[in-house]
């Protein structure tokens, strides 16, 4: 017994020493990338390709719902090199206006709008009524009480508030005029409310506490990617996801028409009919409000990034031929012309790759 213990102690000492030695030689630059959950697959591939091209950099990807990605930078004060979100409007909203207490500077000064996406409804062969689905009856199927529909939490994930917008945009056109109420009435402990916005559009109020009731047919998760597993296990019948994600996972897609999928250029007048407002009284210093517009993915380097040069290198790689090819292969193409908000603030190396936003 004592012999055994002594042996174990020795082994532990050797391991500790070895670990100490192993970490000293050849330090790699850690590049911390926080990205929206819908970018998991292409960004993992991007990580591998970038590290191959830059063996001295170790890319550390972390994925969350888009709003949470922001909050990791601005509220939890984590040191992040690259921030990529599924809604480029979040960068001005949550990063320009807030200053890092350590430096006194805003968390970000510029943002690139690099890709779009389309919102769609994912399902599988096992989903209830899967064999009946058409683009006409999908809304009616979603409101059936025995059908479980997954939506990302609109408080944390862009795909969540976008899905809510889609319901109001569809009602009265592709769907009955009371679609929103049919879908969400009585589902939450504190109701999600739909009112007029005063100019012919609709305004959705999301309460501070969003919790579904027992046996609700609407299922909420923190990020849309968390719904995929539930869809695959059969616990969800339908889920609102981005088309790129649906294709990456080989799920069935009930495609939404251009006026609903939030992915077409030049339709912002239509999309802008829906607004989502987050009613946070206690926690957040900003009360975010989102007006419908074409989906734009945004990327930036926070002002307090510990490795800004490697971060710029990473974004240049994403916008270069190899990055474009990777994104394309994951059904998530990069814009022909990437635009920049505050172009004059964009790092010099990236400026030639982008044009100033109109």
């Amino acid at each position, binding site marked *: 017994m004592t012999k055994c213990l002594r042996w174990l102690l020795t082994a532990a000492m050797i391991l500790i020493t070895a670990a100490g030695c192993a970490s000293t030689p050849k330090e790699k630059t850690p590049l911390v990338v926080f990205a929206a959950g819908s970018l998991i697959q292409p960004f993992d591939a991007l990580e591998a390709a970038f590290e191959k091209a830059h063996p001295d950099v170790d890319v550390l990807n972390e994925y*969350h719902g888009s*709003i*949470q990605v922001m*909050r990791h930078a601005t*509220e*939890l004060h984590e040191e992040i090199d690259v921030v990529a979100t599924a809604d480029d409007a979040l960068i001005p909203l949550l990063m320009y206006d807030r200053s890092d207490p350590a430096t006194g500077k805003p968390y970000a000064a510029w943002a690139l709008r690099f890709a779009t996406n389309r919102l769609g409804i994912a399902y599988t062969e*096992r989903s209830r009524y899967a064999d009946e689905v058409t683009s006409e009856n999908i809304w009616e199927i979603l409101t059936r009480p025995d059908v*479980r529909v997954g939506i990302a939490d609109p*408080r*944390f994930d862009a795909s969540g508030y976008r899905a809510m917008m889609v319901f109001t945009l569809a009602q009265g056109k592709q769907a009955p005029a009371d679609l929103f109420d049919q879908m969400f009435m009585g589902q939450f402990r504190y109701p999600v409310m739909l009112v007029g916005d005063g100019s012919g559009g609709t305004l959705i109020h999301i309460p501070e*506490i969003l*919790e*579904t009731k*027992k*046996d*609700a047919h609407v*299922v*909420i*998760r*923190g990020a849309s990617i968390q719904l995929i*597993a*539930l869809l695959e*296990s*059969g*616990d969800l019948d339908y889920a609102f996801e981005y088309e790129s994600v649906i294709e990456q996972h080989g799920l069935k897609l009930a495609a939404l028409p251009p006026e609903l999928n939030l992915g077409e250029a030049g339709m912002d007048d239509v999309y802008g009919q829906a607004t989502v407002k987050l009613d*946070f009284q*206690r*926690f*957040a210093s900003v009360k975010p409000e989102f007006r419908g517009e074409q989906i734009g993915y945004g990327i930036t380097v926070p002002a307090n990034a510990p490795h800004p040069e490697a971060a710029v290198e990473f974004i240049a790689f994403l916008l270069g031929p190899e990055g474009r090819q990777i994104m394309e292969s994951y059904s998530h193409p990069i814009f022909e012309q990437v635009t920049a908000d505050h172009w004059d603030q964009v790092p010099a190396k990236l400026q030639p790759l982008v044009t100033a936003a109109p």
Partner: protein
Amino acid sequence: MKFSPFWVFSWMAGGLVLLFIGLPLANTLLSTPLENLAATLSDAEVGRSMLYTFGGAGLATLLAVVGGVPLAYLLARTEFPGKRVVEAVVDLPVVIPHTAAGVALLLVFGRQGTLGKLFQPLGIHFTDDLNGIVVAMMFVSIPYLVNASRESFRMVDAEMERVAMIDGASPWQAFWLVTLPQAWRGVLGGMLMMWARGISEFGAVVILAYHPKVVPVLIFERFQGYGLDSAQPVAVILIVVVLVVFSLLRTVLLRPEKP
């Protein structure tokens, strides 16, 4: 105790461990602004979440006793082929990552899972339901009950049970009147450990039942969504309640008998 470098080393090393456990807890408790704490105390969601957490873990423990205690007794008293395998199976939930446990449970208790389908006609659901919380907590914490009970049954002299049975007691009577009065502290200790482990479970619960939110899920969500200021008071309340409840229970129920 004679003064020797050995004891100095032991006290110093042990002290470091205590500091390692105590410091984060004490820091969390002391660095929370009182007004945040007051607001959180009156937060209905936190109260409800507490109820689900402590109640769910309690329910899981009570249900587990029905099968766990007999299993522990079998493992303590009998030899059978494959006993080692059974003991390893009992320990499995401790060893596997709890997120993996959650996935495994989802595949069995989910709406399309074997047991999920079986219970559905009875109106019993597991995903996003208290039932799911109970199942997830039970899965990850039952080893504590079985192992503690088994050890305490082992401490009871099997000879005394045999003597009781020679005197005409049935196996039931021998268990209730001879074994349990001597082993109950160990069983109860195991139940407390299981309850505590259930309360603290996050990984398996969050996969099977994100809603209704147990406190660990609520803390995670508030930390992720709103930052430290809103997560910390919830954590403090949980830490305080757990400390009070468990120190009380330990002193009242598990006080060693005076010789």
